[in-house]
């Protein structure tokens, strides 16, 4: 069975390792991946622990469909208490790590304690070894992975590693595998660094059994057609996520000069087509790479064509990098975006957070809140490409007063900088927003305000809201598998009915994260892509687990509620589900007619949040109601099933 993969408890302080099977009843409650991670985090941590102390628990997992005959089951999920926000820390990456972890016999790793000196884990066919990593400390993310391959003599080893940023406990350091696959957000790399854990290396040659082989294969063919026939997947396979820029920037949905504008006027050089041109020139016509078993292959490869890093190979950049190193700091050069992307990957830094915070510092510099004394002479103006690149180095190495301050994340840095600096910070729950500007789209704004890991576009964003789909299409998507007869609107400026879309998407994304499938294979960028009904079938055929679409919905709801319970336990209140004032006070100044002048209405937004809580079965403070917890069977947590 694909369900015989185990859970390993690894205590780095004591050097103790224990493995256990995952009981079927737990599978039925949480499936795997992010859902089960959330349960484990709630059960294996005490309240109010130091996220960078030995009491924090690092959870690494594969989804329940990982390495089966289903498509795009490459996702690895990583969870811990976030050192950036103090709330739920959670991040997800593609690549090849999760399938390899399953072939090596494991689904979940629960890593506790703190090693005395740098170590890495070597996981091979059911066995786990803690090995010395002193010689790897200080190495970049790719150097580390290749050094481990060489040391253990196997080219096919896949590792999840941290770079220098993680070692230096930068609070938004990430965990990486491959060249650019990153579990980017909420500082999971810092948690790994705090445990003195440099890498987790896996290699497995154990069979994953498929429950209903021939049918699983046949069904997957349908699945593949559904994916490959969607226009959005085709475009993504050609240009990667930067294609989104071509729609959002002209329209006026890209934060520029931190939050001063909503459109980058000088973006010709960082458009998707230009980046594609560079990739074609430096790599060749076939420059898109894929994660395990994926038909979308949206990962571009490139070499930096000129500048101090000329000739260096890397992968990406994604839409995020265009905004973080292009839009927000108002830099105009593709070289800057490619270099920033490369450095973040090598240092193991969440580039979204880095770019966002540097742009914030730029605004503070221009406002005179930061002076050249604070920046050690660096001219931190908007559009200063060199200063941007220099700041990436400083943050990752915690160099200089400002580099060290920003490495602490926005809220802590604002405390150090003082004055009015906090007013300029664009964040939710202490985590920076994506460069997308949500003022003209209340649905998207609600998504980032309520996302369980802090401001985030991959937790509940109803991206198809921007397509102005006819109401009957929306109804078809959003009334499945749970019926919904309330209002729905094709207008992106509307507030009415949007909370349901956000609630539905949140549940949907939780579903894919439990299954271990990539979000580009579900209702995210394309309305016709597979969701609950297909999953139910795929899950049954591959693993033998019989779950109806509604059952999977309930699993996702349960996991969302566990995440909520965790956040509330760590001090989350309704006030944290809120945007910074600039969203309500400063209207959009650029873009299309339906964007100019747009800002979020406080009263209507409050109502939206009420409605969103109502859909979840939470009270007006955002606390799950006892009957909700009872219905989901989590009214007696922590229940310590695992």
């Amino acid at each position, binding site marked *: 069975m694909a369900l015989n993969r185990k859970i390993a408890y690894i205590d780095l302080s004591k050097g103790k390792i224990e493995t256990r099977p995952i009981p079927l009843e737990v599978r039925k409650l949480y499936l795997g991946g992010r859902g089960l991670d959330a349960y484990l985090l709630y059960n294996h941590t005490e309240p109010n622990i130091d996220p960078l102390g030995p009491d924090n628990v690092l959870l690494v997992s594969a989804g329940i469909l990982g*390495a*089966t*005959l289903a498509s795009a089951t490459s996702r690895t999920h990583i969870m811990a208490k976030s050192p950036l926000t103090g709330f739920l820390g959670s991040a997800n990456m593609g690549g*090849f790590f999760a399938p390899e972890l399953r*072939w090596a016999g494991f689904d979940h790793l629960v890593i506790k304690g703190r090693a005395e000196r740098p170590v890495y884990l070597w996981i091979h066919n059911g066995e786990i070894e803690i090995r010395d990593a002193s010689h790897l400390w200080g190495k970049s993310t*790719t150097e580390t992975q*290749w050094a481990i391959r060489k040391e253990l003599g*196997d*080219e*096919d080893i896949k590792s999840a590693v941290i770079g220098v940023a993680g070692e230096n406990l930068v609070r938004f350091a990430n965990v990486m595998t*491959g*060249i650019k696959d990153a579990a980017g957000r909420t500082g999971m790399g810092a948690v790994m660094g705090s445990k003195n854990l440099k890498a987790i290396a896996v290699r*497995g*040659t*154990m*069979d*994953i*059994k*498929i429950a209903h*082989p*021939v049918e*699983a*294969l046949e069904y997957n063919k349908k699945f*593949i057609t559904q994916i*490959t026939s969607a226009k959005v997947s085709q475009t993504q396979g050609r240009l990667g996520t930067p294609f989104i820029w071509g729609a959002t920037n002209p329209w006026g949905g890209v934060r520029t000069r931190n939050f001063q504008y909503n459109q980058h006027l000088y973006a010709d050089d960082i458009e998707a087509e230009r980046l594609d041109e560079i990739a074609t020139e430096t*790599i*060749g*016509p*076939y*420059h*898109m*790479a*894929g*994660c*395990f*078993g*994926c*038909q979308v*292959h949206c990962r571009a*490869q490139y070499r930096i064509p000129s500048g101090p890093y000329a000739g260096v*190979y890397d*992968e990406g950049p994604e839409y995020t990098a265009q905004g973080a190193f292009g839009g927000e700091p108002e830099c105009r050069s593709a070289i800057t975006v490619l270099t920033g992307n490369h450095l973040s990957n090598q240092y193991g830094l969440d580039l979204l957070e880095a770019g966002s915070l540097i742009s914030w510092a730029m605004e503070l510099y221009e406002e005179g809140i930061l002076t050249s004394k604070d920046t050690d002479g660096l001219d931190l103006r908007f559009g200063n490409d060199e200063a941007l690149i220099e700041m990436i180095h400083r943050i990752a190495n915690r160099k200089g007063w400002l580099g060290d301050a920003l490495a602490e994340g926005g809220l802590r840095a604002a405390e150090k900088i003082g004055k009015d600096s906090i007013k300029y910070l664009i964040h939710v729950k202490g985590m920076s927003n994506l460069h997308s500007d949500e003022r003209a789209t209340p649905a998207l704004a609600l998504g980032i305000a309520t996302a369980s890991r802090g401001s985030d576009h991959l937790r509940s964003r109803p991206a198809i809201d921007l397509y102005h789909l006819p109401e009957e299409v929306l109804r078809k998507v959003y009334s499945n598998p749970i019926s919904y007869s309330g209002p729905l609107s094709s207008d992106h400026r509307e507030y009415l009915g949007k909370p349901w879309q956000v609630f539905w998407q949140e549940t949907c994304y939780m579903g894919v994260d439990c299954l271990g499938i990539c979000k580009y294979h579900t209702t995210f960028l394309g309305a016709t892509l597979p969701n609950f009904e297909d999953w139910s079938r795929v899950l049954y055929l591959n693993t033998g687990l019989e779950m109806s679409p509604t059952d999977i919905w309930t699993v996702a709801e349960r996991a969302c509620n566990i995440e909520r319970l965790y956040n509330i336990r760590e001090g989350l209140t309704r006030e944290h589900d809120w945007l910074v004032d600039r969203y309500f006070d400063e209207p959009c100044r650029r873009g299309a007619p339906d964007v100019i002048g747009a800002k979020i209405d406080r009263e209507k937004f409050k109502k939206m949040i009420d409605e969103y809580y109502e859909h979840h079965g939470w009270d007006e403070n955002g606390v799950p109601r006892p009957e909700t917890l009872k219905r989901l069977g989590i009214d007696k947590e922590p229940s310590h099933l695992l």
Partner: protein
Amino acid sequence: MANKTVKVIKINADECNGCRACEAICSAFHATPKYGTTNPAKARIHVNWDPLRNLYVPVYGGPYVEAECLGRDRYVIGEKEYDECLFCRAVACPSRDLFKDPDSGLPLRCDMCEDDPSLKEPMCVQVCLVDALTYEEREEEMEEEKEKLDELEMGLETLIDKYGFDKVADTLARISISKQAET
């Protein structure tokens, strides 16, 4: 002289994006029951993978060899240098772990997904949507072929090479006696 259909999997390494769907499906096709497991370590195709150099080269298991070769090659194509052995299709070569069943050590050779009824194309070609792998058949004049070893024979030969003929024969005899005793 007789005509023979030669089956060819044409590899366009440039188009390969390294997703390894071919490895997974190959291992599934050759599993018992068919498609019953995935395990790329048992695949008869292997994507040589070095993203740092943008290098993805699928190679599928070819002839069985007993010993490693003496000379090693290095290829420079375009600007890329390819390591020794990278293009080599030798199955069960002692110099590497490739194309050996991880459990039994038995050789894993590509059989073009022989099946009854026969497949339109081998499975790896079917799942490769970017056409890094394509399938071709061509007619070739061939001398009368020597009798081909089937998979069982090939496996036995490997065991004989490893343990010697007598030991294998003894073991087989012993197993057959104990099996008879069971029934």
